[in-house]
């Protein structure tokens, strides 16, 4: 089972299952304790300069936008980021807080490509290592499984593999080449959910994206939630708990936290807001003005909600589809 090929990309966060276990054993609390706190406290306590950070799902869909904005407000620097992203990573790039990117896709889907990404990478300010969406999610999954790598059958034969940090080996059972992606454990994960109790037991409605994998691959995990529910309710439908409490370090109540993105069954995306940012982001000065208004110009998510305005939010609520 010799290594046939090794990607030449830098491994920004090497796999270390034993180190993860040690972290869990010494730093995580398996007691059910109340973890509800403000977004300021959560980010102050659990996001550090230089952290390797990840967000789920992505910028326009169930994204932890209020936590991302707070991270920017608190000026966390030299972040290393796992990027399947849209608005959330664009904001981090716009605020110049990112040093390295494990990138799979950063753009604006239907709206166009990312000016923030282009400036950051083309200038040489931000270093990149490329992966596929599957590839990076399987990296989270490897960390979530507590193993150092997973075998995958994509990325093979391409420059996506060459410029990644994956390896190719011959499978010792079939003899055929298979790609191995190294486990990716986050220093800190930010996840926004529909419902959580005060201990951190969480539910997500609709697609699960990679919430299962990323929540289990995070050394520190901050959850924001549209609403806090009772533990009695959690215990009634235990199969709906996608994130159990012991994974979670902080629970932040934050209604509309995914704005300007959508939250399925709650509110639709704010297309005007997103497109306005995307347009502004082509110009560094206008990008700064956006940050000044929507991030630095508010003290917290409550003020952000006021700035958006309840009329607008009610409108977005009316535009989301029912089940």
């Amino acid at each position, binding site marked *: 089972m010799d290594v046939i090929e090794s990607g030449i990309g830098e491994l920004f966060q090497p796999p270390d299952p034993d180190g993860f276990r040690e972290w869990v054993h010494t730093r995580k609390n398996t007691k059910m304790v109340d973890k509800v706190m403000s977004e300021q406290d959560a980010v102050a306590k659990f996001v550090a300069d230089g952290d390797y950070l990840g967000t789920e799902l992505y910028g326009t869909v169930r994204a932890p936008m209020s936590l991302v904005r707070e991270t920017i407000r608190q000026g966390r620097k030299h972040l290393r980021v796992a990027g399947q992203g849209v608005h959330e990573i664009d904001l981090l790039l716009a605020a110049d807080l990112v040093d390295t990117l494990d990138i799979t896709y950063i753009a604006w889907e239907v709206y166009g490509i990312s000016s923030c990404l282009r400036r950051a990478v083309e200038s040489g300010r931000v270093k990149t290592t490329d992966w596929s969406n599957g590839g990076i999610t399987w990296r989270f999954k490897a960390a979530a499984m507590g193993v150092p790598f997973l075998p995958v059958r994509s990325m093979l034969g391409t420059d996506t593999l060459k410029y990644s940090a994956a390896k190719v080996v011959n499978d010792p059972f079939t003899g055929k080449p298979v790609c191995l992606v190294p486990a990716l454990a986050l220093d800190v994960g930010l996840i926004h959910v529909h419902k959580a109790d005060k201990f951190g037991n969480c539910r997500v409605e609709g697609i699960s994206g990679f919430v299962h994998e990323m929540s289990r691959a995070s050394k520190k995990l901050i959850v924001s939630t549209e609403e806090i529910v009772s533990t009695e309710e959690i215990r009634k439908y235990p199969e709906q708990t996608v994130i159990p409490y012991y994974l979670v370090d902080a629970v932040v109540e934050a209604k509309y936290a995914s704005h300007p993105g959508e939250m399925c*069954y709650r509110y639709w995306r704010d297309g005007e807001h997103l497109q306005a940012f995307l347009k502004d982001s082509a110009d560094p000065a206008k990008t700064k003005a956006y940050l000044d208004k929507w991030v630095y110009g508010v003290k917290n998510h409550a003020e952000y909600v006021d700035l958006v305005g309840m009329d607008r939010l009610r409108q977005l609520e009316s535009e989301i589809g029912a089940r």
Partner: protein
Amino acid sequence: MANYNESEFLICLASKLMEDGTTAFVGTGIPMLAGALAKRMHAPNLVPIFEFGGTGASLEKLPLGVGDSRTFHKAVAASGICDIMETACRGFVEYGFLGGAQIDCYGNLNTTVIGKYWPPKVRLPGSGGANDVASFCWKTIVIMRKHDARAFVPKVDFITTPGYLTGPGAREKAGLPPGTGPYRVVTNLALMDFEPVTKRMRLIATHPGVKPEDVVKATGFELLVADQVGTNPEPTEKELKLLREEIDKDRYYI
């Protein structure tokens, strides 16, 4: 010539490639429009699959991304990206619809960088799920909105997503599942397949008013030409009406 634009033509043609009752990975943009159109026209039982978890959505409203709530509205299942990609890896997804900035004669796609890797001249979005889709689906269909020598190049700057790589047998040698690979390329000028022996791109049909030599000339590599080059069907009134009045009434694409 009927009253339609290039995007509308592209969407209608891509739509016709979507088979009823089968599974298809639907990416953001043209594939979503084509899927929504196909479901209303000839393929009501098409099962659209979106990489972040939606399977079998109704597509009553146009999704704006591969994870939004329209990708699993009235779906039969809403799981996550691992489940979807692994389902494709096990061979359950027939078609994958993709786009790219550059393509070569073997159908290899670039959506990562123009120029050298880092720092690049232009940083593009990256693979997203495209590499996985093209690795796993039985038939990959590539949609290129502009057929010219900037997009159809002898060598892509970066192979983001595998076509036939360096030619016959190369996918299998790399460890990719056998029997997979690019199947069709749809552009604003023509429809191409891949010649079975050499795995090189081949012109099989042009749009009304487009001559085979126009397509060859617009291609930056030597494009094979089938013995019989057909003509692609024009959009019908019904298709155009559905596109304009229902599917993309906000005009994201058309």
